[in-house]
């Protein structure tokens, strides 16, 4: 891994995010696209129902008389839109999800209803995995530590944290996480999704109010629902709307009884994975102090990836970590492991230890996974510029700025914050989602393209996930291919950055 620019990149945390308006022609043709798909969908469903066409997929085993397990209209979208482009998703890999990926080649004889493996492996540049700091590795000192840990501590404890699932390693991990983030204490869990879904109910219950950003992840929405609190959603990153909601809610109290709220919790994410945007942390902290609310920050994608020291958005915005009441994050993305954590004051963590569903019932984290995180944390805590941790953070920051600037200059409509390593470029229509994915794969790049329902109907996109393990050469190749495919699909339609060819977009300054 070579570092282009070894000095830390200067930061301008006040940079604005730009969301270019959808070109009218794109919106129009996208709707036409959906209409055509719907018409074909109805027609094919009709053929299937009248048995003119054989129904693919499996059938119910139970005798008749049972209420159908699935309503046919619920899976209309799956059968008629998703199935056509199913080869773009769930692609199996055969090796480390690092900077380069070994995809297992698969072919389909029946239009994506079933796949067969040819046995070949295709090596591609990997812009799809969440490997921000490039720690996904099967050799090296960290892998050696992991192997040692398997021999010393086994693979699992088969007991919950409240019973006998605590090893010395788990305690070490928790104190390292607290040290890394600068909080009093921390607690770790085996799954990031479950960390949100199972712990929000220990913080809020009936009589509380949760103010949740529009684009929050499913785990946050599920956690909020399970808690039983009243949930109000505010427009994405719209601080004025949030303030209005806060004022109106405090004034009118709980619905119907008008009793005052027990507490108000604002739930935001550090980096939003589909938009690439950052939360506006300084304004959020100001609002929460003004109205005495509590702030829950989910740093799944930003921990390790944002901030000059890799400590996440709190580091990036240069805020005080004690102003955020609950810091949550996952170990899956920047640490190349699995699991999640919650950090904050000691009382908070003690309360979670006693009341969390995960602590009482779920099996504690697997020791080799814990060792992987400990090894990565040891590297990242080290503030020395010449050491591995800082080099990777700087490399990621450089890659982010480089890639984003050149991509925008080439005329792609790119969303998100200029410093976020998640780079969505807009495709709009479902056909382009499939086409971009397949064309890039032909050229040896694996990307993630998403459409409805993960994004709004018209705003299908390709989401590049940058990594510190990408070299400048890899990024240049990707950009060149993107230029080709972008022309093929007529994607380079930005009016703010009228399209320039690749060689003219050479980076001059940050």
């Amino acid at each position: 891994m070579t570092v282009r620019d070894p000095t830390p990149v200067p930061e301008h945390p006040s940079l604005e995010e730009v969301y270019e308006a959808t070109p009218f022609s794109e919106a129009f043709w996208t709707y036409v696209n959906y209409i055509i798909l719907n018409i074909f969908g109805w027609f094919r469903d009709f053929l299937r129902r009248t048995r003119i066409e054989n129904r693919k997929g499996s059938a119910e085993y139970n005798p008749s008389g049972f209420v159908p397990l699935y309503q046919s209209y619920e899976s209309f979208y799956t059968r008629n839109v998703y199935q056509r482009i199913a080869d773009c998703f769930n692609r199996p890999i055969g090796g480390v999800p690092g900077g380069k990926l070994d995809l297992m080649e698969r072919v389909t004889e029946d239009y994506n209803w079933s796949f067969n493996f040819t046995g070949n492996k295709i090596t591609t540049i990997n812009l799809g995995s969440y490997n921000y700091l490039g720690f996904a590795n099967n050799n090296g000192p960290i892998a050696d530590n992991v192997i040692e840990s398997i021999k010393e501590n086994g693979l699992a404890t088969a007991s919950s944290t409240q019973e006998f699932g605590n090893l010395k390693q788990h305690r070490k991990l928790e104190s390292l996480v607290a040290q890394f983030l600068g909080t009093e204490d921390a607690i770790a869990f085996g799954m990031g999704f479950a960390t949100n879904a199972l712990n929000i109910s220990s913080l809020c219950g009936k009589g509380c109010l949760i103010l949740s950003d529009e684009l929050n992840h499913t785990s946050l929405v599920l956690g909020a629902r399970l808690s039983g609190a009243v949930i109000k959603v505010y427009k994405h990153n719209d601080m004025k709307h949030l303030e209005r909601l806060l004022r109106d809610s405090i004034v009118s109290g709980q619905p119907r009884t008008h009793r005052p709220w027990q507490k108000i919790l604002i739930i935001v994410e550090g980096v939003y994975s589909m938009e690439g945007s950052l939360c506006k942390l300084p304004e959020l902290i100001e609002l929460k102090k003004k109205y005495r609310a509590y702030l829950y920050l989910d740093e799944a994608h930003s921990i390790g990836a944002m901030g000059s020291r890799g400590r996440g958005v709190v580091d990036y915005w240069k805020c005080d970590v004690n102003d955020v009441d609950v810091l949550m994050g996952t170990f899956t993305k920047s640490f190349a492991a699995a699991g999640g954590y919650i950090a904050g004051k000691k009382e908070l963590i003690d309360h979670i230890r006693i009341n969390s569903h995960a602590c009482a019932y779920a099996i504690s984290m697997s020791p080799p996974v814990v060792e992987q995180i400990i090894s990565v944390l040891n590297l990242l805590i080290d503030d020395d510029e010449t050491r591995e941790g800082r080099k990777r953070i700087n490399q990621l920051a450089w890659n982010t700025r480089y890639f984003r600037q050149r991509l925008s200059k080439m005329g792609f409509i790119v969303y998100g914050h200029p410093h976020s390593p998640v780079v969505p470029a807009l495709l709009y229509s479902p056909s382009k989602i499939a086409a971009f994915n397949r064309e890039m794969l032909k050229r040896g790049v694996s990307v993630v393209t998403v459409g409805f329902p993960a994004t709004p109907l018209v705003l299908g996109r390709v989401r590049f996930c940058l990594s510190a393990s990408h070299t400048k050469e890899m990024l240049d190749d990707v950009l060149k291919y993107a230029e080709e495919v972008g022309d093929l699909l007529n994607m380079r339609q930005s009016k703010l950055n009228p399209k320039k060819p690749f060689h003219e977009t050479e980076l001059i300054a940050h």
Partner: protein
Amino acid sequence: MGSSMTRGDIESLATDFYDLLESFKHAPFYHISFEIFLVLAVIWLVFFRKPRAIEKKLTEREKQELIDEWQPEPLVPPVDPNHPALNVRVLDGIVGKTVEIDGKKSLNFATFNFLNFVGNSRISEKAIQAVQKYGVGSCGPRGFYGTIDIHLELEERLAKFFNCEEGIIYSYGFSTIASIIPAYSKRNDILFVDEGVHYAIQKGVEASRSHVKWFKHNDIQDLERLLAEQEVLDKKNPKKARTIRRFLIIEGLYVNYGDICPLPRMVELKYKYKYRIFIDESVSFGTIGQTGRGVTEYYDIDRQKIDLISSSLEYSIGSIGGFAVGSSFVVDHQRLSAQGYCFSASLPPLLAAAAIEALNIMEEQSTPLFETIMSKSKRLHKKLLSIKGYSVMGDEISPLKHLRLANALNTIGRLEEIVQFAQTRDITITVARYLTDEHLLPEPSIRLILNVEMTDEELEFLCTVLQEALVKVTS
């Protein structure tokens, strides 16, 4: 704008007015009295009726006052520093048949390590090979390059082991059943759930927002009663009944009770009342049945009749994660609808490799291994029954048993004393931990778990220590 009125206009106005007065004179009496009444009514409405209080909108100043006055509760309530969750024992090394606490080794009857696969060298070797091939994390959800060939292999192996069409794996045991139930059962549907199911199932049921009908633990009569009641409602409204899905959610072997569900009768009722059966075999997989295939094997029931079997890789298999097996028709739906599958990173490959090797061992050792664990469970059960003063809950072939003090002596305090005493004699046992908001909080108990490699002497030693503890606590 002045309108000039001509003399003719004034004259016609006067004429009209005169005509009006004349018409009054000629009108019938009832007409005039009615008109007078109306006029009086209007005067009363306008001047004399008490106005209804209209709520005035709050002024900005009042709103600001309310905002300034509002004080939230602290984020978390004060914590009891003596709570057992804050004073857990920290272990060192492999949590296998023996555990090391504070430098001393003790026999482990507390962790869910039924087949003693934790620390097994064959399994560890395969996991090490997986690290050398794949690294540790999978860095993505299944939909976006997080599907690794080893996941597909594990799913196939699990499906083959159970002789089902398809399998699906999850990266966390708790989330498995908690994600499966809401994927199939929605707001309109009905869930018949045993009261004694464990917490993860309760959370899954809550997340589904369906109508829940709890029946008494393992009580078939109660279940039949609920089903009959529902049938009556269905007959009243057959059109609606045709859109309501019904599910029966049970466990093979209940974690909170140690007893086995009465599956044959439930399968009979399935065809009578037309519901689908989802069994959670977290504990019964790898412990019950001649070849470890769970309650369906124990009762010799055709697995095709069960719609979905979900289980955990964290108990007998000694890895991390969970899985579900069934027909493709049922299981495939989860790949797009189960939240814990779609929106979460996939299982680290080393843990999947460990699970495959554990399955290999289970298949190689097969009947001898499972007959051993069932017979040892029976022996332990007999030994425990012979200690006066304890009541033992659980089936005799179940390797998981709940031990309680007889009569009113059964308190958490006394059970904790027993646990502490046992630790001083190098036996590790645990009080079963629950959260207070369980649907049906079980009585305090010590959850004893049998490891298949415990020898008869060790089981005898356990009973001796339990006897001594009883004496100490009740004196």
